[in-house]
């Protein structure tokens, strides 16, 4: 394993080196990096800057030698200066990299979770209406130009949404009806059994969907959102039952007890914890601490219920604990939504289409700042997600179908295991292994996509830096962006290989 890692790292570093040489030499042909000097009118200042830039970037040496100068600096951790601003590229990188990573990882996690779930459901209900709808949408998403979607999102999700929000956030009837029909179609396709049962489920699903939206719209939920205890209690219990049903089986009394206990503890804690959450010093560290406590308590509850399979109960309880605490976390954010949106800075235009955060919110408290970050992130993340979402759905579906047709699945069914055990334990685990590679590959693609998304939404991230640098003929800036993107992709790939070998014992990394 260690030998493999070392070999892979060395090989990747060499590849990166060759790629950097290639890009650097290409860039030297792009044009004169000093062309911007003509914009400076004062001849003396112009000459000074010219000489200093030539000196600091060794522009007077042949291009190959210049590359090695640059490489020497990079090895020492210095990406040089920008010709245009004469500022250190390192500083710029330090401020921009976190933004891009935030965007890419947010979109990655969301699209993995959503895509994998959808993929599994479509595989289990192959050739159903839901399967066809999802397949059509994956094809459509694959065919969308990212910038085109981003521009439309900016209009519909940004400007139009804000107008709608300002005007009272009432859903029009046609939208509620459409949502109801959509929910009914999906419920019909996902539900199993014969058509009378499925129709009943579809009708219930459709009515529930339409009713929910009607209620939310009429009660002014969109203006003043939140979850509250009234929803948290049924939702929490449902989550506990669902998590048990999927991961332990509903007949496992002890696991069910453990998850229900955890859910109830969450509901009891809900009210007493609010003052603590409201506290002025609440921050990410406090949130992390709360999460750790939650997980510890849930695992404790799981063990306390005991039984022959204590580990399983603990796992399910931990999952429920995580979900409930996440709900409470989201609820607290939603409570601050109205305060954020009606603030004199936001002025009733909550969803932002430009930039990554509003600096004037600093010091207004954890929840407001997070709401602001969310409002800035939602649209670029959506734009970035669409395409990888389609990819994940397709891959998971194909992988799941392939695994479900294998011999050991037939064996598992033949020896009388429940469908849940067959699908979750034998099918799902094996189907998800190849996804490790896909996720890594996709992160590389997302970094490319971020170039576009950041341009449309004017994020000051790496992608913007790359384009601006290229447009300004600023070699060090372009090189820094390219190298970081390449290195991220390389690291993701190595991690994927390692994850693959850990997940699949048949694969040995001794090569």
């Amino acid at each position, binding site marked *: 394993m260690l030998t493999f890692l070392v070999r892979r790292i060395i090989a990747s570093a060499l590849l990166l080196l060759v790629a950097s040489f290639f890009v650097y030499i290409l860039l030297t042909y792009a044009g004169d990096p000093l062309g911007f000097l003509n914009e400076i009118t004062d001849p003396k200042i112009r000459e000074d800057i010219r000489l200093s830039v030539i000196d600091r970037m060794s522009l007077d040496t042949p291009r190959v030698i210049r590359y090695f100068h640059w490489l020497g600096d990079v090895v020492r951790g210095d990406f040089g200066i920008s010709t245009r601003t004469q500022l250190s590229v390192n500083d710029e990188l330090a401020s921009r990299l976190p933004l891009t990573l935030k965007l890419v990882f947010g979109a990655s996690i969301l699209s993995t979770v959503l895509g994998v779930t959808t993929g599994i459901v479509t595989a289990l209900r192959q050739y159903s209406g839901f399967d066809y709808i999802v397949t059509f949408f994956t094809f459509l998403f*694959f065919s969308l*130009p990212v910038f*085109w979607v981003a521009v439309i999102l900016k209009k519909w999700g940004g400007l139009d949404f804000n107008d709608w929000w300002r005007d009272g956030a009432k859903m029009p009837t046609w939208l509620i009806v459409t949502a109801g029909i959509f929910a009914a179609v999906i419920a019909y396709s996902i539900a199993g059994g014969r058509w009378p049962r499925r129709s009943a489920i579809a009708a219930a699903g459709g009515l529930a969907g339409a009713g929910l939206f009607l209620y939310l719209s009429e009660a002014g939920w969109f203006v003043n959102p939140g979850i509250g205890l009234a929803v948290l209690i049924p939702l929490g219990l449902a989550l506990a039952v669902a998590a048990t049903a999927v991961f332990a089986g509903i007949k496992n009394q002890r696991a069910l007890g453990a998850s229900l206990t955890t859910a109830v503890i969450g509901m009891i804690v809900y009210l007493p914890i609010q003052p603590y959450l409201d506290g002025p010093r609440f921050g990410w560290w406090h949130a992390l601490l709360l999460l750790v406590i939650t997980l510890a308590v849930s695992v404790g509850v799981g063990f306390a219920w005991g039984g022959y399979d204590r580990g399983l109960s603990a796992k399910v309880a931990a999952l429920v604990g995580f979900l409930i605490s996440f709900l409470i976390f989201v609820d607290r954010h939603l409570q601050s939504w109205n305060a954020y949106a009606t603030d004199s800075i936001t002025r009733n235009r909550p969803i932002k289409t430009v930039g990554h955060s509003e600096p004037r919110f600093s010091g207004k408290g954890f929840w407001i700042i997070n709401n602001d970050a969310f409002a800035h992130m939602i649209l670029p993340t959506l734009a970035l997600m669409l395409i990888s979402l389609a990819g994940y759905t397709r891959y998971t579906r194909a992988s799941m179908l392939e695994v479900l047709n294998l011999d050991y699945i037939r064996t598992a069914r033949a020896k009388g295991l429940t469908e849940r055990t067959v699908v979750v334990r034998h099918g799902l685990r094996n189907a998800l292994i190849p996804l490790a590679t896909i996720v890594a590959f996709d992160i590389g693609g997302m970094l490319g996509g971020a170039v576009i998304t950041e341009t449309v939404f004017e994020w000051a991230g790496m992608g913007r830096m790359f384009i601006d640098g290229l447009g300004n003929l600023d070699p060090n800036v372009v090189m820094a962006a390219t190298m970081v993107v*390449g290195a991220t992709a390389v690291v993701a790939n190595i991690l994927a290989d390692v994850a693959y070998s850990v997940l699949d014992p048949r694969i040995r990394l001794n090569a």
Partner: protein
Amino acid sequence: MSTPEFPGTGPDADDLGLTELTHEQREVAGLSQGQIARRRFVRHKLAMVGLATLLAIVALAVSSIGAGPIPGWYEYQHNEMVPIQEKEGPHMSLRPTWLGGDGVQFGDHPFGVDNQNGRDLFAQTMRGVQVSLVVIVVLALLSVTLGVLIGALSGYFGGWLDQILMRVTDVILILPLLVIVAVAAFSFGWSGLWSVALALGIFSWTGLARLVRAEFLALREREFVDAARVAGASSWRIIFKHILPNTLGTIIVSTTLLMGGGILTEAALSYIGFGIQAPNVSLGSLASDYARSFNARPHLFVFPGVFIILIVLCLQFIGDGLRDAFDPRQKRIPKFKDLESKAQQVATQMVEETKAARGDLPTYGRQT
């Protein structure tokens, strides 16, 4: 009608689909690989819809504004000044008069005009379709040539040649396609049709090369290759006459998908300002040039985008159909209803035949 010696081998059992020769095997009996693939492809409804739509789009783009020596039937050209129109939006109408619309009509400027620059959007879009299609055809030719050659040499010969070629592939794969093409196109000042197509093609072959290499690695160990070698065939002949035809499916499928991706990359490249630029127009450059005026004049942005989506969607459908057609594991699951009625038919026929042979059988067979 003889009694079958072994159960499930006689002609009757065969008709019932009970033999080893299964449903799909009987369907392809006596057909060549190419014929099988073609038949499957033609039966793939979605792929056929995609192909028909794509052909219609090509026909529309070529016939309307013409191409080269071919004159078009449309009044304007993409680079022709159009007088300022009172109605800037699309003149085309699809809503009939009895529904309160203007009636189904094509109009003078079906997709509307760009009053600022005095351009007709339909002519521009059609020109964009032509350019984008040329770009992806060039891209496909280039990447197929490079990808197949590199993949084949690498996979067939192995050793140091494989090492070198695969490391070159890795170097290109390490950076996002968009980034590397942007740098190349910008460095050489490429903004015309051919040069952007060239830049895209030079860097898009990597995936194909890896696929072809993998196929060659597997196929070169097969008996038919040994046979060819023993018969004295040269490496060149083995590569192109014996192995390559067997990898054709992979190549065609992945090229189709590559072409779809090519349009999207070209569009993205135009958007960040390093692709096809004015005075040339492609679908991508049109959509990106008009992206800023989306709020005020959405038609300028929407029509080119819709054509991008349509073309890529068609290519995806065709690619999907091709994949199904070339995949030997692909099974057409016969519908239960079909099997039932087929069994019914065969049973009736058997009874009739037996009756004819014996002449005195009562008609009990029909009642089941």
